[in-house]
């Protein structure tokens, strides 16, 4: 390969890595809730759909590029609906409110049903996250791949995926020692961040509403994480006052 081709391959590798890190973050977050086996199954299914789409609609790339905003918006809205619910539940647990509600439940079967539905939804979150990021990598490969062969472009994207997976798996063991509600709270903040980024970006134009680009995800995560703890503290304080007044 000449210098231009090496440059193209490097650009695809690095740009793909950004997308794969985002996808892996979602899979990692979901894995901490529903387990690695199911989460990686969802990720594999997402990658499988991307592969099938490449085979089936390779010629319809222009149409796919036009629709990527709508796809992003739809997935973002799904993540917001799911993420906000988890966020509120985790805040209430921090505030000591949901635990009281659980004790008052009359039917254990209802709770099992609830957990089953949540697991299914978490699987869908991982699947859609990988599907969307995979589609973006595919568009990247095609957009930047004209400087070298598509095989080399796809190889760069796959190599970058392998690198992200290896780096990500190293995080598995340390994360198992984190308390459950802290994990769920962190997951909900991550899902809300991606949901906000994709939902509004898909509806109104990503570059217009998120001028800082992918860095915004970190800022959103920090904002949601900090605000949630403040809300939990406020709710706990309000609850303590009420209990004190009743006593």
């Amino acid at each position: 390969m000449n210098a231009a081709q090496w440059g193209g391959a490097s650009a695809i590798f690095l740009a793909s890595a950004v997308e794969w890190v985002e996808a892996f973050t979602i899979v990692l977050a979901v894995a901490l809730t529903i387990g690695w086996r199911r989460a990686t199954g969802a990720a594999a299914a997402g990658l499988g759909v991307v592969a099938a789409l490449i085979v089936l609609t390779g010629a319809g790339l222009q149409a796919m590029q036009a629709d990527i905003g709508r796809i992003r918006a739809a997935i973002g809205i799904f993540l917001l609906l799911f993420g906000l619910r988890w966020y509120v539940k985790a805040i209430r647990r921090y505030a000591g409110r949901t635990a009281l509600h659980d004790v008052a439940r009359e039917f254990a079967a209802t709770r099992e049903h609830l957990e089953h539905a949540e697991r299914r939804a978490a699987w869908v979150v991982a699947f859609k996250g990988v599907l969307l990021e995979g589609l973006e990598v595919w568009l990247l490969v095609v957009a930047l791949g004209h400087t070298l062969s598509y095989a080399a472009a796809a190889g760069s994207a796959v190599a970058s995926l392998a690198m992200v997976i290896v780096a990500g798996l190293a995080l598995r063991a340390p994360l198992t020692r984190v308390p459950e509600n802290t994990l769920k709270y962190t997951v909900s903040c991550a899902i809300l961040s991606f949901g906000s980024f994709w939902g509004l970006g898909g509806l109104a134009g990503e570059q217009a509403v998120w001028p800082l680009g992918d860095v915004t995800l970190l800022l959103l995560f920090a904002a949601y994480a900090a605000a949630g703890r403040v809300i939990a503290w406020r709710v706990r304080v309000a609850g303590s006052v009420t209990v004190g007044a009743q006593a």
Partner: protein
Amino acid sequence: MRKLLQLIFGDLRNAVSVAVALLAAYGISRLAPGAAGAALALLLIAAAAFQAA
């Protein structure tokens, strides 16, 4: 189906919170695109505070 959707996405309050926050942020994006993202985040945090209380 309705029950399943409710179990996954929460009650009507949750759906309305997301819809209102997104619509408001989208409206703001027409006038001041740079402020729409922050508005969305603030609205969602306010919705979470309302639901958690």
